[in-house]
């Protein structure tokens, strides 16, 4: 059973609206939408595919015939467009302290070193490490975790150190690994689809 929806002579958004109505009325079977302009063709295709149905298109005498194969199982709600897309697995670490956790500073330093060693060895490796506030000490001369950070940097992990923080702690000449960054670049890392893990 095929139903034709003739939208020739109609401009957007009306072909989409007529298609939407037809999809709501016909629970099963196929529907062919006929449009005569490129914008309507693309908008109807986009709408139908985002509603979770497959389409076939053909062009005949200047008109586009869009055949929609509707199946009962698929309803409009379950197959909404994934705006974010699939999540990349590699996490981003946002590190705003040079000591891990509250309590003894000595213990904090030991734990931070252990964390960096663990991150270096774990799979998947991080996408990026972002160091802010006292976290920037970890990227500078004298830091005990430099070997781990350098190893990760060499393996393609992006390392960012907050420029304002380096200035504040007078560390700008002592940065040993990573690039000096600003709040906007850092924010752009944090709002990416990757999982962000905050240490601080």
């Amino acid at each position, binding site marked *: 059973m095929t139903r034709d929806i003739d939208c020739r002579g109609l401009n957007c958004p*009306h072909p989409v609206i007529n298609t939407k109505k037809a999809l709501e009325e016909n629970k099963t079977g196929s529907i062919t939408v006929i449009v005569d302009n*490129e914008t309507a063709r693309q908008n109807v295709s986009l709408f139908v595919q985002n509603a979770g149905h497959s389409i076939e298109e053909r062009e005949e005498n200047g008109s586009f015939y869009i055949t929609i194969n509707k199946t009962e199982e698929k309803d409009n709600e379950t197959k909404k467009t994934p705006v974010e897309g699939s999540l990349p697995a590699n996490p981003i670490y946002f590190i705003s302290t040079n000591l891990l956790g509250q309590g003894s500073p000595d213990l904090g330093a030991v734990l931070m070193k252990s964390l960096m060693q663990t991150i270096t060895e774990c799979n998947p490796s991080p996408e990026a490490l972002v160091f802010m506030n006292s976290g920037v000490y970890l990227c500078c001369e004298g830091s005990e975790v430099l070997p781990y950070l350098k190893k990760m940097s060499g393996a393609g992990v992006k390392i960012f150190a907050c420029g304002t923080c380096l200035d504040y702690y007078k560390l700008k000449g002592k940065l040993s690994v990573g690039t000096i960054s600003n709040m906007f670049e850092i924010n752009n890392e944090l709002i990416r689809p990757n999982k962000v893990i905050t240490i601080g």
Partner: protein
Amino acid sequence: MVGIDNSDDAAVYRLNESTAIINTVDFFTPIVDDAYIFGQIAAANALSDIYAMGGTPLLALNIVCFPTCITEEILPEVIRGGADKVKEAGAVIAGGHTVEDDEPKYGLAVTGTINPEQLCTNSMAREGDILFLTKPLGTGIINTAIKGELASEESAQQSIDTMIMLNHGAAQAMIAAGGKTCTDITGFGLLGHAAEMAKASGISIEIHSSSIPLINGTMDLAAMGMFPGGAYNNREYLKHDVIFSPEVNTALQLTLFDPQTSGGLLIAVPGEKAEILSQELNKKDVSQAQAIGKVTAKQDYTINVV
């Protein structure tokens, strides 16, 4: 000083050491039913080109094309909307010209001034600059959806608020932050105007799609195929210039090509000035402005959307 070579927003002519004049003209057919709102949108849109050059509007002339049959009741409302926006901009309407036309059209020719030292163009973006967009996108999509009665009242109202908002505050924030690179977003969509900036400046641009400010409801309507033809034309025109990461879906890609009416400013500032610009935008109540990307060295693409 600025002509038609780099697709910039307005013509600029230097009068002397300290003053240049900026001239621009823009008018279009009604995009909303309310005559007073249409007048405001058309005026905000025409004034925007002066702001995009960093200038101050001084005087405006009305351009009116109207059918005689509806002149009496509608036209005064359109003119009133335009006059109110010009007044808000601190400029004056000094006259104008009316012709009879079956399809109504309204807009302004605007003259502004600027100190040549402070002129902002679309050709001074440099590697490392951060890009800001000062108004949310979506007016083309929402206007299409309104025709089909599919836009929510909230989306429709937010779209109108966006279109009638002057780019005055955004321009002041840019000047306060020392910004020199700017264009306004209109018919070619975000990516069209960003591509003009990239080509005029000899650089490439990276856009972070998840940072783009959008009018509420835009993505739902985009996924329903509520695009005006201009969005597809813009995409076709830029097909060799723009590349997309796989996670940027078709609806979002097209939204970045959506033609805007009276859109925001696209401003590029060096990284160290980005925080100042952000603070200045907040001070001027340009609350929806966002950092949306950065300028990179020239690549084999013009724009990369991630």
